[in-house]
């Protein structure tokens, strides 16, 4: 690729948001957080989560915008 190829695009977009990724390997186990991705919209976040965390044969995977997670307390506050 020529050096001009990336100049129109930022490696991290200013309007990109963080998504938490949850998955489970069997129906019997609860969903647990396996990581996070950064993307400008839900569709791209889905594609990125599937590509990034495909190391297991998950039976279920879900993503949620980090800003939509309501924290009850944080470490040290309980």
């Amino acid at each position, binding site marked *: *690729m*020529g050096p*001009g*190829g*990336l100049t*129109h*695009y*930022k*490696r*991290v*977009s200013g309007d*990109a948001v963080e998504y938490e990724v949850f998955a489970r390997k069997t129906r019997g186990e609860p969903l647990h957080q396996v990581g996070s*991705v*950064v*993307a*400008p*919209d839900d*569709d*791209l976040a*889905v*594609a*990125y989560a*599937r*590509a*990034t965390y*495909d190391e297991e044969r998950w039976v279920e995977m879900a993503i949620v915008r980090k800003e939509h997670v309501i924290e009850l307390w944080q470490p040290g506050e309980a």
Partner: protein
Amino acid sequence: MSLSDLVLSIADNKQMLGLRYAEWATRAPSLEADIAAAAMGLDDLGHSRVLYGCLEPLGADPRGPDRESDAGSLRSLQYFDEPWTEWAQFVAANAILDTAFTVMIEACVNGTVEVLQHRMRKMLMEERYHFLHGRSWLKSGVDANPLSEAWREAIEWFGPLDGETATFHKEGRLSMGPTELRARLEERLETKAPAVQIDWKAWDPVRRRSRPGAIDDRTFAMLRGLEEKKYAKAPPAP
């Protein structure tokens, strides 16, 4: 022209699409996009292997010995002849050409040929993520030139309205013909195809393209395993 020729065309194009995707695994606009490029590349290379495996059950394998020596005997589109130099080319291929191949796979899965119904169905599940990736990047805005080129080649690849693809549709072997394939592609991408002029007299029904040319020498050598041999250990001296 047989259905095997069409399946081989899908296979060769997916192989080249996978290789071109993989070339961007370290130079996409974000780390996530790097990883997605690698994952989609692996998917499409895997799909091509499944498709090559369909040729024998279909009854006629159109691959000849010239595939080892003549890059022009491969049936990939002009879009894949050279490595892409701009991210916009990646996005146009991802959104338009990858989806065009998926739409053709839908036509095979919903057609009457059993081996294609069974073996190609799983590809549609994996392609869902390619589509989301391509459509999202497409919405972010990319240069018009690669987009119009990808549209032109997609429509050309579907074939003329009175060609074999239309016949396979009439026979039920494909659930869609060129008109329906184009409409389905437009529906999925939520946009109309630009007006394109195609010289069908120059169209090669085997390679499903109207312009000559072939993939670059380095990629062709890599496909044949010659690039890897450059890095192999020299055999011990006798």
